[in-house]
């Protein structure tokens, strides 16, 4: 972590038109993707309702970074009740009692799917990081574009932020780079 403050990042509408991220820095796109992911994996019955931006309390917050020529940070934060509800809904029918690691994993996987679908809107060659999930008493999603939603009264906020090259370099590396850094696996022993 660097103590040097990062330069201000562009808000929606401030990127040059030729930047491929300009087209997806749109709250409507973020809301739509979130709703698709939500209705498929979490709750097909209860729609997400847009609300005004607000801090997420007792929060589970997941971040994935899209690396490449057009780096983006994707954040998904949800209140404790929303996060536990998500994990319970995603594991419904498995007979498994949900625990805190399950909640972290579920929130991270939703961020991963959201990030993957956003990556698909960028030119080919972008790479995704594994999700990083943290728990905090309060989270304010610091992003260029934010979609704040309510699910059964529980708050979730998704945010998109274009990254400057130096910010992308400081973020978690993409999976492929991580793999390249890993010493040879035991694969050779299996053949």
């Amino acid at each position: 972590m660097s103590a040097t403050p990062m330069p201000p990042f562009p808000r929606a509408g401030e990127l040059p038109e030729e930047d491929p991220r300009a087209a997806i820095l749109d709250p409507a796109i973020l809301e739509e993707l979130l709703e698709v992911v939500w209705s498929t994996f979490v709750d097909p019955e209860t729609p997400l309702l847009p609300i005004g931006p607000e801090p997420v309390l007792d929060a589970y917050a997941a971040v994935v970074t899209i690396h490449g020529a057009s780096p983006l940070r994707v954040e998904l934060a949800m209140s404790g009740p929303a996060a536990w509800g998500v994990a319970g809904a995603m594991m419904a029918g498995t007979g498994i009692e949900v625990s805190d690691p399950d909640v972290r994993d579920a929130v991270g996987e939703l961020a991963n799917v959201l990030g993957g679908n956003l990556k698909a809107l960028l030119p080919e060659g972008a790479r995704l990081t594994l999700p990083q999930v943290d728990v905090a008493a309060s989270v304010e999603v610091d992003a260029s574009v934010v979609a704040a939603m309510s699910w059964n009264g529980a708050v979730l906020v998704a945010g998109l932020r274009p990254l400057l090259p130096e910010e992308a370099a400081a973020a978690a590396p993409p999976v492929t780079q991580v793999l390249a850094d890993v010493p040879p696996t035991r694969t050779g022993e299996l053949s």
Partner: protein
Amino acid sequence: MFALVIDDSRTMRRIVGSVLSQCGLTPVEAGDGQEALDQLERLTAQGTPPVLATVDWNMPVMDGLTFVTQVRNDHRWLDLTLVMVTTESEHGQIVRALAAGAHEYVIKPFTAEDLISKLSLLGLVDENSEVLA
């Protein structure tokens, strides 16, 4: 019959495993490609090789594409059906996975019906979503 469910997300493993169980398959979980190779060796050694593996792409230790490539390079597992289940949805990535030896491709998010439909296309389940012996 066994099915390997390979994903670094335990939530996703359970979602996919639940669908496969509904079809009559017995899911065996692995959190990355290397763990999946180990499970594959174990199941093969005990005479019950899996008929199917669902494979995430982005995983630590060994990614899904490497797993597919390694499986396809081993004649013991020529009959193993490989289905990518991943957020990687670019055309180029799909082509890479299919060229490496994956049979089908499911993009997250997906419904149970989406996954069963692919298994049906591959001849693994019948019209009642039950596994074909």
